[in-house]
């Protein structure tokens, strides 16, 4: 008898399986067929599939939304989705646009660019939407943009800040400012307002937003006369940043620029304090979430971040939005919800302005947007389809964001 038998990797030992081959095949095909049945009914409910849902005779307006509802940035996708949903609900309650209601078709992309492209493709080619909305992350918007360009469907990204998303394209727009501007905002604030000369940077190397923003900040800060004393990286999802922070501590900076997502920033802030550093942290709009204060606690006191809007803005548009969002979802909206809201409203406004559902007309209306009053500021599209709008810098006091300064472009 052998001491320990080495087994081959295939199914040798098991003599019989619980399900015979034919049955398993039939079962699987049934699952796919059932799912396929779903698809058919889904198609029937999309109006004018045969005649083309994008025609001007359509009985409802279709917004196609691609969002990361699952995956690592699920909270952002959900915020975007809620903002859009709220806007559409309000517009429909007020009678819709051109007498027609808006319907939003939302597809999840699991946080992956491949899925974003597939979802955009489906929305554009099969569901024949009038406007494409999405995405939050620039890499995913970049996957969607060529599809919008190829098929001539206007696309609005609520929150992608990488300039390449709209660069050189005819059909892609956004409602947020771009990273070159945002990086510069914080650099200016650090130099002019806080008078800092030595800053360290801690970026999320896995996140294109963080890397881009960090680069622009570094460029602007050095241009304005400051020095970046240390430049470290982490990966989204890491829990331990002590090694990087120890290196930063050795260089004695006056502040640390952490342009990452709130999910990591909270922990980073804690560890900064645990290592005995009392310098303020600075960041970008990725910080914006109520969870930031939950995780970061008192460690964030005295830190700053650039954002699209401030809760304290007395403008009735902002306050009204915050109140209605709170009522609908039970929590305070973050910048992504606000941007999603603005994107949907901008699309509806463009359609109303041009009075037509022709995609080319909608595109024209978007490109010529002037002084559109959104929650996140007044939007006027520049030649690159990017809005020219100011950013606000917020200071964290008592676990809440308070207004510090507006920085104009």
């Amino acid at each position, binding site marked *: 008898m052998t001491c320990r038998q*080495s087994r*081959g*990797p*295939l*199914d040798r030992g*098991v003599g019989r*399986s*619980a*399900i015979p*081959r034919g049955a*398993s*095949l039939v079962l*699987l095909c049934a*699952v*796919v067929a059932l*799912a*396929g049945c*779903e*698809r058919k*009914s*889904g198609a029937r409910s999309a109006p004018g599939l045969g005649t083309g849902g994008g025609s001007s005779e359509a009985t409802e307006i279709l917004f196609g939304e691609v969002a990361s*509802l*699952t995956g690592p940035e699920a909270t952002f996708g959900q915020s975007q989705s809620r903002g859009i949903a709220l806007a559409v609900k309000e517009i429909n309650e007020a009678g819709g646009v051109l007498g027609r209601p808006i319907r939003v*078709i*939302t*597809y*999840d992309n*699991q*946080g*992956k*660019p*491949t899925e974003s*492209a*597939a*979802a955009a*493709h*489906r929305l554009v*080619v*099969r569901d024949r939407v009038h406007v494409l909305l999405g995405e939050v992350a*620039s*890499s995913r918007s*970049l*996957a969607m943009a*060529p599809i919008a360009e*190829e*098929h001539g469907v206007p696309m609005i990204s609520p929150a992608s800040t*990488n300039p*390449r998303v709209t660069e050189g394209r005819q059909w892609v727009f956004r409602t947020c400012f771009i990273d070159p501007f945002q990086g510069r905002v914080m650099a200016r604030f650090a130099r002019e307002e806080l008078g800092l000369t030595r800053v360290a940077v801690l970026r999320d*190397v*896995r*996140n*294109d937003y*963080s*890397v*881009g923003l960090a680069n622009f900040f570094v460029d602007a800060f050095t241009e304005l006369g400051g020095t970046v004393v240390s430049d470290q990286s982490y990966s989204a999802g890491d829990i331990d940043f002590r090694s990087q922070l120890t290196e930063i501590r050795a260089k004695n900076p006056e502040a640390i620029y952490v342009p990452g997502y709130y999910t990591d920033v909270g922990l980073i802030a804690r560890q900064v304090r645990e290592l005995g550093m009392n310098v303020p942290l600075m960041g970008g709009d990725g910080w914006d979430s109520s969870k930031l204060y939950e995780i970061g606690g008192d460690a964030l006191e005295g830190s700053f971040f650039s954002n699209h809007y401030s809760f304290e803005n007395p403008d009735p548009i902002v306050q009204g939005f915050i109140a209605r969002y709170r009522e609908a979802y039970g929590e305070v909206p973050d910048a992504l919800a606000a941007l999603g809201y603005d994107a949907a409203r901008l699309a509806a406004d463009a359609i109303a302005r041009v009075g037509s559902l022709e995609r080319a007309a909608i595109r024209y209306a978007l490109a010529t947007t002037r002084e559109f009053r959104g929650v996140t500021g007044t939007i006027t599209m520049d030649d690159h389809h990017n809005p020219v709008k100011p950013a606000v810098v917020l200071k964290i006091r008592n676990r809440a964001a308070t207004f510090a300064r507006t920085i104009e472009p």
Partner: protein
Amino acid sequence: MKARVLESWAWILAGLLLVGLASAVLPSASQSYPMYVVGLAGINVILAVSLHIVNGLTGQFSLGHAGFMAVGGYTAALFGTQAISEYKLMYISEPVSDTILFFLATLLGGAAAGLAGFFVGLPSLRLRGDYLAIVTLGFAEIIRVTIENVEILGAATGLVGIPPLTNLFWIFLWALVTVLFAKRLQESTHGRALAAIREDEIAAEAMGIDTTGYKVRAFVASSFFAGVAGALLGYYLTILTPRDFTFLKSVEVVVMVVLGGMGSISGAILAAILLTVLPEALRPLREHTGVDLRMVIYASLLLAMMLLRPRGILGRQEVWAMLRRRRKSPELEVAP
């Protein structure tokens, strides 16, 4: 002997005919959503069949397929953004030049991936089943982390601006090549050696088979096709990001091979198509229920398979072998 040669030629010609006919008749992938999904399914077929060469035929459990896909994809894509976007061959029109260069790019991607397969395989293939799985996973992660840090590959943003040169024809053609290669390999002496390694490696070594050499060769072949698939994907999506090549992607391909039956090419093809269509078809489910159950279904499917029918749908059977037996005589049917 003659019959076998004729049969192989018949297969190749029939296959080519089918490919040509299909790509001519079917609507293009960019204009039709179902065709877009068919294209994705084709790429997954290449992935599944190439992984089958290592996991199914040779019995070595590799969890790093996404890494080779990434190597091939990024190499081809880099060639595309640097060369194809800027230059064209002399004396030929641009579209033809683009197509030729695209074909070259795909080959280049495959070759790079094959090379990576060689360097990964050589040290790893001496390891036992579970260890090999983790090591290949480790290599794939290292590849991915490296890509995230290299500017010229786009880092975290991804490689953008790849010319959209993949169409159904190329996907079908490469799928055909992969399947034919795997089938010929499986039915050859070389393939029998691989099967022997799968069944009992020590006995195979005792029989005089250079197990390491065979295993590494299988690995290289598998990585080559994975690289081709990656290249095709890059030119299909016009953007490649490291996010597309995580451990999860490797697991997806493994699920396809396991589901179809480790040891069956037709099983891998079937499962690849099934598992590409399923998530796409389930999309409306999310709209109706508000919850995305795709990953749950995926994982449950895998578990159900392993617990109820571990050999997969087709086990080690091939569709063509089953058909042939049925034609000959029912008494000759060998128990699966």
